[in-house]
Each structure stands twice: as structure tokens, then as C-alpha cells.
């Protein structure tokens, strides 16, 4: 349903394309010829290339039927709202059965429904997979470098890229084939369409090698960086270790004047045993001393008593009794006389014993003598002296024992202090702390992997891959070179027949470049004129088909879409020559189908079969 234009309304158009060249001709632009190519492209490639956004909503139902390896295929794109489309893919049966199936909406005869109501994205994926599978092609995986970087990543090119060898670039483009300006890709496409043996393997292996090499480089770089960090850390740790070791040595030096705790403890235990023994000895000797002293004191008391008693006796007995101690009656002179004459006691009248112990005369002298005797009496003095000597001896022994005890006690005190100091001193604590710190650092050092040179290391995998790539390259280069030689000759020949004057030779290389020599002057493809590029591209594809046909291994589908080849520096005469030559090739290449668009009806006249020209003259539209 056409909308928003001068002639709106519903429309329906059918186009059929035979072998050889079919031309879609409108005298004006924007009359629908390119849209036809875009719709074919959408159906066959899976996605349109440049379908106009204002035209797409007009479409309700687009059906493209085609043969693939002689199997009828159909793609139906349906839209209800004009913006999003659902795709249905059918294969098999006959052309009639497919058409019938599409009309009825169910499979008729040998038709098979491959997919139904795929959204546009899923359809693109599906079609790509289907075509690669049917043509036996592999996705082209390229190693794409990031701009201004040694890094890159693999990029996978699928069917739409191959389609670049069907729907040729605009004349203005300097890309040889395809939509993507990437070195090497056109050559790859060519070689793959020619089925150069092992080329896919080579490409994949190269990509894999690139990927692995990059990973390894990155890993290696990281390892190098890590190693540098580790080396720096190791140096730091080792300097710390040295500092702690030095500290420990100085602590040991400081502590070496002291003795080990065990030695001190041993001495301490010995001293404790000595102390117990010495204390017991001292106790015993003190007891002996106390006894000796008590004995001496008792003797001293006794001797004092004796002395004093004797003095008292002298003092009081020597007196003449004056009164009776009992009745206090006076002792008169008569009694004194009786005592002297009759030796009877003046007090009690008892007879006095006549003995020296009772001196009546010279009592004073006697007292003095007795006192002297008591004072210096041999027996008493001897006894007291002996006791004193014993006491002094006991005292000396006890003092000695006390002194020994004190000595041992001092030793014990000193050793206890030393022991406490040794086991708790700051030096010991500091040594323990330092040892701990040292152990931690040694642990940290041992946890650092030994510095192996990890720079620019190449793994076995890489080596194998490199060798593999070399083998594959050698193999494919030979095949490709042989193919390229043939291609070059064919392209040159065809180019000349397509009207490129003075074309001496072309030379494809594997990196995708095409060297063009005209009038003896070599130049690059990109420097040739637009018209020449169009013709060289067509020549290249035709050459490809030819060689494929000759070799029997060509996989190019034989469809070429050319959008307005004459719009760009290609004269009408030259365009007609191109079309005529292409149309003539259908005898040699029966499967070749070329669909072109042009705004020049003259270019197709006499060049393309009448029934294969869809012409809209004046301002008319194709549909």
C-alpha cells in the first residue's frame, strides 16, 4: 500500500528472472528499481542492504522464489503493521507446489516448512546459516586489530559477507567486493568461492593463533608486570628481614652477658635446696643457743642467789640479836652473857653448835672472806664459765649458720630476680617480638614465587599453531596462486571484452589487492575509474564462475546483482557492451543470472532479451 506519495494506493507486482541478464529500467530515479534488488537481497541474504525506510511500510507481502542447487525455495515476508515483518521459509516440492503452499498457508506435496514467523533478526540468522550450509561455506573469521593498537579480536563474517560477491558494491566504492572495507576479505571470498583446499582451516587456525598469541602476550605482560612488583616487594621484604636480623643479633649480643633461663633456674633450684638445709641448720643451732643461754642464765641466777644469800647471812647473822623476831621482846644483856658463857642462843636459848660455820668472833672478816670465796669460788666460776663458753660457742655457730643462711637467702633473692628478669625482661619480650616479625617476613618471602623469566614466552600451543599455519599457508598459497594466475588471465580477458581499453593485465594478491595495469601503467583498483571498477568486479565474478565451472569446485551461486552500473562514469555505450557480453555468457554459463538496474533504456536495448526488460518510461514506476 503506497502512502504519502502522489499516486497512493494498493499495488501488486510480479517479477520473474530468467538466465542471463534481466534489466530493471526506469527513466527516472526513485521509481522502484533498486527496491526490487533490495527485496531480493532481503530474502536471499536475510537482511536488506539499503532498503528505503519510506518504502518498507508500504510492503505487506513479499515473496521471493528461487532455486538453490535445483531445489525450489521460497521466502515469504509478511507484515501486518508495515513496520515489522515475519518470515516463513519453505523448501522442496515443485515451483507450483511452493506457490500453492504459500497461497494456502500449508505445505503441499513435497514442500517442507523450514521456518515460520521468524522475526527479522531471527530470519537473518536463519538465512545466513541456511545458505552457508547449502553452499558448504564456512564463516570467515578474521583477526581484526583495534585502531592504533597491537590488540585485536576475532571477527566472524557470515553469509552477508559472502553476499558481497553477489550484490556488487556501488560503482563509487573502492572496495573490490563486499560491503566491508577490509583488507584481505575480498580475496578470501574469492578463494572460498573457488574452494581453495584447506583455506578455511588456514583462516581459522590463523585467527586462533592470533587469539592465543594475544592472550599469551597479555598474560606474559601481566606476569612481567606482576614479577616486577614481586621483585620490588621481595627486595623490600629482604631489607626488612635484614633489619630484623640485625636487631635480633644486637639483642642476642646484649643478652649474651646474661645466662640462659635454664641455667639460672638450675642454680635457683640448687639455692633453694641449700636454703632449706641452711634454715634447718640455723634453726637447730639457734635452739641449741637458746638452751645454752638458758642454762647459763640459770647458773648465773643460781650463783647470784648463792652470793646474795651469803652476803645476807653475813649482813644479818653476824649481828647481835636485839629483839626477838617472834615476840619482839628485848634480848637483854643477861641473855647475851648466857650465850657467851653457856653457848646458848640469846634468842631461843638452844645450845649453839661449836663450829667454824658459826663464827662469833671476827665476824666481819669472816664475811669478807666468804664473799670473796663466793665471788671467786672455783666450782661456781668454773660451772658458769663452762656454760658461758658453751653459750659463746653456740652463739658463734648460730651466727655462722645465720650468716650462711643470709648468704643463701641473698643468693636466692638474686637468682629469683635474675630468673624473673630473664623470663620477663624487655630484652626477652623484644627478642620474641623480633623473632615473630622475622618469621612473618620469611613467610612472606617464601610465598613469593621464585622469579622465573616469564617475558616473551611462547607456549607449545602457539608453536604448534604457527607450524600448522605455515603448513596450511604453504598448501593454500600454492593452490591460490595457481587459481589467481588463472583468474588474472580471465579477468584481463573479460575486462577487455567489457570495454576496458588498454587493459594489459590484472594481478590479484592474497591480501585482497588488485593491481591493474593499463597501457603499461600499473595502478591499484581503488585508483581506477568507477566504470572500470564496475566492469572489473563483474569480470572478476565471471572469471570466478568460469574457473569454478572448469574446475568443478565453484560454489558461487551464479547470481549477480548490479545496481545502476551506468550511473557512475560508465558511458551508455560501455554499459551496453558490458550487458551484451554478460548476456552472451549464458551460453557458456547456463546458471548465470545477472539482474541490473539502469536509468538508460538505450543501454539495454539490443543487449538484453526483450522479455527480460522491465521498463517504466517517463515518470512511470516499475510497480
Amino acid at each position, binding site marked *: 500500500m503506497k502512502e504519502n506519495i502522489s499516486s497512493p494506493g494498493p499495488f501488486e507486482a510480479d517479477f520473474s528472472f530468467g538466465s542471463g541478464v534481466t534489466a530493471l529500467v526506469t527513466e527516472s530515479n526513485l521509481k522502484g528499481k533498486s527496491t526490487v534488488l533490495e527485496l531480493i537481497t532481503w530474502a536471499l541474504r536475510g537482511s536488506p542492504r539499503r532498503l528505503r525506510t519510506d518504502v518498507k511500510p508500504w510492503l505487506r507481502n513479499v515473496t521471493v522464489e528461487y532455486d538453490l542447487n535445483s531445489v525450489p525455495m521460497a521466502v515469504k515476508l509478511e507484515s501486518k503493521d508495515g513496520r515489522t515483518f515475519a518470515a516463513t521459509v519453505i523448501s522442496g516440492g515443485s515451483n507450483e507446489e511452493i506457490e500453492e503452499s504459500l497461497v494456502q498457508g500449508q505445505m503441499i506435496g513435497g514442500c517442507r516448512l523450514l521456518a515460520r514467523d521468524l522475526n527479522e533478526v531471527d530470519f537473518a540468522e536463519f538465512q545466513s546459516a541456511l545458505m552457508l550450509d547449502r553452499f558448504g561455506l564456512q564463516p570467515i573469521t578474521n583477526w581484526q586489530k583495534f585502531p592504533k593498537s597491537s590488540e585485536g579480536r576475532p571477527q566472524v563474517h557470515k553469509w552477508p559477507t559472502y553476499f558481497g560477491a553477489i550484490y556488487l558494491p556501488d560503482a563509487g566504492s573502492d572496495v573490490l567486493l563486499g560491503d566491508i572495507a577490509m583488507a584481505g576479505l575480498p580475496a578470501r571470498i574469492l578463494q572460498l568461492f573457488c574452494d581453495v583446499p584447506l583455506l578455511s582451516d588456514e583462516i581459522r587456525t590463523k585467527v586462533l593463533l592470533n587469539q592465543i598469541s594475544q592472550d599469551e602476550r597479555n598474560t606474559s605482560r601481566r606476569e612481567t608486570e606482576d614479577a616486577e612488583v614481586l621483585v620490588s616487594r621481595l627486595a623490600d621484604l629482604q631489607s626488612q628481614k635484614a633489619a630484623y636480623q640485625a636487631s635480633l643479633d644486637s639483642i642476642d649480643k646484649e643478652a649474651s652477658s646474661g645466662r640462659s633461663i635454664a641455667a639460672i633456674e638450675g642454680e635457683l633450684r640448687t639455692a633453694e635446696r641449700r636454703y632449706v638445709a641452711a634454715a634447718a641448720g640455723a634453726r637447730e643451732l639457734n635452739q641449741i643457743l637458746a638452751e645454752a643461754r638458758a642454762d647459763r642464765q640459770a647458773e648465773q641466777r643460781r650463783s647470784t*642467789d648463792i652470793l*646474795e644469800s651469803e652476803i645476807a647471812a653475813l*649482813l644479818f647473822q653476824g*649481828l647481835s640479836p636485839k629483839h*626477838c623476831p617472834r615476840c*619482839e621482846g628485848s634480848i637483854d644483856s643477861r641473855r647475851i652473857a648466857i650465850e657467851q658463857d653457856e653457848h646458848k642462843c640469846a634468842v631461843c636459848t638452844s645450845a649453839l653448835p661449836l663450829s667454824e660455820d658459826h663464827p662469833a668472833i671476827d665476824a666481819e672478816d669472816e664475811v669478807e672472806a666468804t664473799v670473796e670465796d663466793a665471788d671467786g669460788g672455783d666450782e661456781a666460776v668454773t660451772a658458769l664459765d663452762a656454760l658461758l663458753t658453751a653459750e659463746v660457742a653456740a652463739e658463734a655457730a648460730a651466727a655462722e649458720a645465720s650468716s650462711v643462711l643470709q648468704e643463701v637467702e641473698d643468693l636466692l633473692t638474686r637468682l629469683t630476680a635474675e630468673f624473673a628478669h630473664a623470663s620477663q625482661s624487655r630484652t626477652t619480650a623484644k627478642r620474641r617480638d623480633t623473632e615473630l616479625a622475622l618469621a612473618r617476613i620469611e613467610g612472606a618471602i617464601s610465598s613469593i614465587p621464585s622469579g622465573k623469566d616469564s617475558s616473551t614466552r611462547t607456549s607449545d600451543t602457539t608453536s604448534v599453531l604457527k607450524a600448522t599455519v605455515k603448513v596450511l599457508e604453504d598448501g593454500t598459497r600454492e593452490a591460490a596462486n595457481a587459481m589467481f594466475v588463472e583468474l588474472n588471465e580471465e579477468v584481463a580477458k573479460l575486462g577487455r571484452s567489457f570495454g576496458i581499453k588498454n587493459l594489459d593485465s590484472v594481478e590479484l594478491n592474497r591480501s585482497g589487492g588488485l593491481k591493474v595495469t593499463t597501457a603499461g601503467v600499473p595502478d591499484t583498483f581503488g585508483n581506477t575509474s568507477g566504470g572500470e571498477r564496475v566492469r572489473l568486479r563483474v569480470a572478476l565474478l565471471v572469471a570466478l564462475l568460469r574457473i569454478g565451472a572448469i574446475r568443478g569446485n565453484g560454489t558461487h551461486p551464479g547470481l549477480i546483482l548490479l545496481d545502476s552500473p551506468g550511473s557512475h562514469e560508465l558511458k551508455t555505450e560501455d554499459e551496453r557492451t558490458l550487458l551484451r557480453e554478460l548476456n552472451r555468457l549464458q551460453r557458456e554459463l547456463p546458471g548465470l543470472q545477472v539482474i541490473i538496474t539502469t536509468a538508460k533504456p538505450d543501454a539495454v536495448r539490443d543487449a538484453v532479451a526483450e522479455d527480460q526488460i522491465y521498463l517504466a518510461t517517463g515518470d512511470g514506476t516499475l510497480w
Partner: protein
Amino acid sequence: MQDAIRILMLLDAAAEPLAEAPTEPALSTAVGVVRTQIRLQKLDFWVRNPDYLANELLNDFENGDRDPTLLMLAEQILDSEEPELRRYPMLRYLFGAYEQLDDALAILRQADLVVRRLRGAPGHITQHDYYLLEQGRAKVSETAQKYPALDWYSARSKLVVALADGIGATQLKDRQYLQEEYLNTPHGFRIPSITDRARNRLSDLRLDGTIKDVG
């Protein structure tokens, strides 16, 4: 006989001068008197028990005005062997230390050195008075001159009397009862020594630093 010397010395030290000469002919030569038996016996107790005396000196030191002289005296006793050598234990008798002084007094009496007089009616003696006669005092002088070995009695008697100065006999007895060992001694047993306790007490006082400048 030792007792007689001690009592004589003590009476000499403790005798108070007589206000007026007694009328009794036997006392015509009296030079002083010691009143009451209890007083005499208590003074005697302190002479015979240097440990109790020292302890009492410490009491006076602590409870009084802390006269350093008291402490010095106590130290002299306790630091010497006096408590061991000069102790003449008494029996506890009824309400206090008591020992019959009669034997010693008889010796002193027969020589006309000391005369005892009793007051009150027979069977109800209220007080003993001990009169020191001239001959007694003369004998003390003679003894001091002739027998220096007995100086100790004289000196100790003077100290004891000085300590008891101004204190009545009953108060002296009360002081004795303050000593726990004395109180607990059963009737008829020897009064125990408190030497160790007194010495420990002195030692404690010294450790306190209270008396470091003393002695």
C-alpha cells in the same frame, strides 16, 4: 635471806619521812615508814618481775605524755638479760601477788633494822606500817659501800618507787591486774613471764619509728 636484803632496800627507797617521832620507845630511832602491806607487796612485785615493770613503763609511755625516759628505762630492762636473770617469781595469792614477808621481816626485826606495827584490833588488822630504823638505813649505806653486787636492788627499788610515785596502793594493784597473764594465773601458781610480749611490744614501737630517736 636474799629477801631480807631486797625488802630492806625497798623500805629504804619507799619510806616516807615521819612527820613527828613516834612515842613508842621501840620506834624511837625510826627514820621513815612504808604504809600498808599491799603497797609494799606490790612494789616488791615490780622489783621481782622486771618484765612486768618494763611493760608498765611502756604503758605509761603510750598512755601518758610519751616521756622518752620511760621508754629508755623499758629498753634498758628488755634489751638486757634482766628479765631472765632478775626474776623471782611469786605465787598468786587471793587477789594479787603475795608472799609472806614475815621471814624477811623477822630477820630485819631481830637486828633492830625494821619494825612492823599493826593497826586495828586483833583479828581485824586494817593496816601494816613498816618503820625503817636508823640502824636499817645505816645498814643500807654500809651494804652499798661494802657490797656493790647488791647495788641493783637499791637502784631498782628507787625506780619502782618513782614509778609508783603518787599512786595509791589499790591503784598499783589495779595496774597489775591489767596484765592478762597475771589475771589468768590460777590461785597458788607462779605468775608467768610476759618478757616475750614486752619485748615484741618494744620492737613494734621501734618499727613504728616512734622511738627511733630514743636510747
